[in-house]
């Protein structure tokens, strides 16, 4: 009972300050919204905008290339009227465009030659993954246009071998008709590659063509933000321990009937409840506003939340033990938040990092917490899938709690 009283005292101390309470709740919500938006949520056409500067006028092949890019599910070509090279580069640098395509003058004529050696220029920022995705799609469209020219050549040669043309004009007309048919055929090719996803947020084919679903983007953001801000929540909570030690409140408590174990457990319980409360708000927000299906496996999600909260609260206890003053407590919480969130993949998915970084990342509890949450809300797996992440988190919790208790000082 004393443990609960102490925990309630800590909680009322935290919530009494509306500014602190606001940050604990509002910040993660704002960030989940912002990151979901950044990763593509809330837009009608989520295809990557690609500027096209057609210097080859109204030529058949440049228009054919535009049409093939237009049917892409990944890029959205936009004609850049009257733009110069420097304007285009600026638009790409400012990330108004994922990339820009410059179809050079004479492209059509060059591509029709048997050598077919005509290239289009692509302006992009090599450091951007959006640009690399756009480049792949532009390349596929350019290859298809070249393929259409090749098909027209082969048809023309076949007819020429059989019957021959009356004159050059007849041959050109035959070639043009074959080319038009081939370009049309490429807009709906007979062999395709489709993508399907496993899991709770499996994307419908029409959404896949548009680059993903809102709930999918939010689900990716939601897990990372929840883990990061669980640690951020410690900034205030760990500070209470520091202040109580500084003001001798802990020592005074020892003169009462409450035991040392009860004092430590009381403070630990307050942090646990605060973090769990923060997570419940985030889960409800994700579920209701973004349609992230946390409730598809409530028991699995509850287990991950509990394991994550236990580890984070144990970390809070350790920070509160090690920090000598409020400043140190804040700095330690922030440092750990940044390092653990960065290494654990809360900012950059570990998929993008080298093998060694991924291995190091999985030495952090944050990576395991994100894995546990994503197993349910993104991969659509069940209770079984969260057992290992939870076990690892509990292991970290035991270590942090043990160190915290071992080093705990009442004065």
């Amino acid at each position, binding site marked *: 009972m004393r443990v609960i009283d102490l925990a309630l005292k800590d909680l009322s101390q935290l919530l009494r300050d509306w500014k602190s309470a606001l940050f604990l709740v509002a910040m993660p919500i704002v960030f989940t919204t912002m990151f979901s938006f*950044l990763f593509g949520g809330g837009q009608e056409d989520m295809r990557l905008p690609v500027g096209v500067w057609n210097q080859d006028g109204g030529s058949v092949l440049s228009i054919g290339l535009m049409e093939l890019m237009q049917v892409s599910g990944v890029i959205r070509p936009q004609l850049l009227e009257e733009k110069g090279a420097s304007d285009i580069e600026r638009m790409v640098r400012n990330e108004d465009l994922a990339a820009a395509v410059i179809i050079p003058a004479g492209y059509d004529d060059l591509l029709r030659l048997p050598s077919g050696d005509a290239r289009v220029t692509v302006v992009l920022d090599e450091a951007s993954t959006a640009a690399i995705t756009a480049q792949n799609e532009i390349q*596929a469209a350019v290859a298809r246009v070249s*393929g259409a020219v090749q098909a027209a050549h082969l048809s023309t040669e076949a007819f020429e071998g059989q019957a021959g043309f009356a004159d050059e004009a007849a041959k050109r007309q035959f070639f043009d*008709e074959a080319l038009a048919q081939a370009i049309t055929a490429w807009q709906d090719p007979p062999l395709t590659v489709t993508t399907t996803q496993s899991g709770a947020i499996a994307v419908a084919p029409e959404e896949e063509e548009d*680059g993903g679903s809102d709930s999918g983007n939010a689900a990716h953001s939601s897990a990372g933000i929840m883990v990061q801000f669980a640690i951020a929540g410690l900034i205030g909570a760990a500070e209470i321990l520091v*202040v109580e030690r500084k003001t001798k409140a802990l020592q005074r408590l020892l003169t009462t009937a409450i035991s040392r174990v009860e004092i430590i457990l009381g403070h630990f319980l307050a942090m646990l409840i605060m973090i769990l409360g923060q997570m419940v708000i985030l889960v409800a927000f994700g579920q209701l506003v973004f349609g992230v299906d946390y409730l598809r496996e409530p028991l699995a999600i509850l287990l991950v939340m509990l394991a994550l909260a236990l580890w984070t609260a144990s970390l809070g206890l350790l920070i509160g033990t090690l920090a000598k003053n409020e400043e140190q407590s804040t700095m330690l919480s922030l440092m750990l938040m*940044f*390092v653990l969130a*960065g290494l654990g993949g809360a900012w950059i998915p570990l998929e993008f990092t080298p093998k060694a970084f991924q291995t190091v990342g999985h030495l952090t509890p944050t990576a395991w917490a994100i894995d546990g949450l994503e197993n349910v809300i993104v991969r659509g797996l069940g209770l079984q899938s969260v057992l290992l992440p939870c076990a690892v988190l509990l292991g970290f919790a035991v270590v942090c709690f043990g160190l915290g208790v071992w080093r705990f000082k009442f004065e």
Partner: protein
Amino acid sequence: MKTLDIALKDLLRAARSAFFWVFAFGVPFLTAVLFYFAFGGLAGQGDFDLPKTAIAVVNLDEPTALSGGFSAGQMLVDFLSSDELGQLLQVTVADDAAGARAAVDNQQVGVAVIIPAGLTTAAFGSQERAAIELYQDPTLTLGPSIVKGIVSQLVDGFAGSKIAVDVAREQLAGQGATAGPVALQNIAMQYGQWSAQLGEGFEEGANPLLDIRPIGGEEGPDLRIRIISQVLAGMMVFYVFTTAANSAISILQEEEAGTLPRLFTTPTPQSNILGGKFLYIFFTLVIQIVVLVVVTGLIFGIDWGTPLPVAVVTLAVVVLAASFGLFVASLLKDTRQGGIVIGGGMTMLGMVAMARTFGVASPDAMGVVNVISLFVPHGWAVRAWQELLTGGGLSDIWWIALVMLALGGLFFTFGLLRFRRRFA
């Protein structure tokens, strides 16, 4: 003089704190190192050095009499398992579609490539269609995108052969001629050869279709350095603003310790005392930025720009951050409130300013984010550094510096007024 004395006294006190050193210099540097290695997978030696993707391939395709025993599915399996793709893919062959999907579900592989039974039939028949299914782990984006690009390249080769054959058949028929099976097979073969040659062109490293023009030209810095420098600029701004606010808290600490009220009883004017506090923050931030710019320049080779624009941006950022820190501290009731408000608030504002660094999915979103980031003071500072890092000069940053100085003036005035009222 007294203003300077107060500033120096506070600087000395801060210099004695190990946490100050760790937070002001150690953590920003550590973060840079972290990102340096994190992005190593994408941009190893200036080129894209992509992490290997594990895939499971199941080939349900069956050769037909029409194809003369040739299997398009087997060709795809051989292509994916070839040595040339060994740097990108780690291939295992599954017995059936369920097994391949299970491998994805169990996170043993990132993508299952399911080749349908009728792939060869569709490649050689006239009406048939086929789709290769890529079943992917939904948490992955980069690996599946690479696999899709590779598979699509080969599938487009088959589709192109079929289109070439169909076009020849119909065009010849339109002219009253008939393309015989041998002629059509010949067309398919020739198209296949052309497609293979195109593929070989890519393998040789030269792109036969596109002339890639990176922004900033070919002579720009190493790709990894470009990514790191953008991230580091954001991180530096975040830590500078947090250091400023945290340093401004010393006013509240002195108020709580009773030293500040005692100082106010001395002949030193209140404005000198607060000015001293501001100068202390100012010097701290100047040192912090100079150290970070020099150290990251020496270790990572980051080119922050020419001295004059760098000095202008440094000055403007320091004035803005120091004034904002003073303003934030003036809003706080006590130091206890400072922990979460400064820690949380600065994190929030810093991440809004750095949002573009994380926004990899959509340039549309970037446009909005670029505007939103300018609603927070950190955003202007990040914008200025990014201009310098992308080769901008004085003409590109002077107006940003002016905005920062103006904002700094406003925050300083508000902060000072609030403190004056508080200590009146």
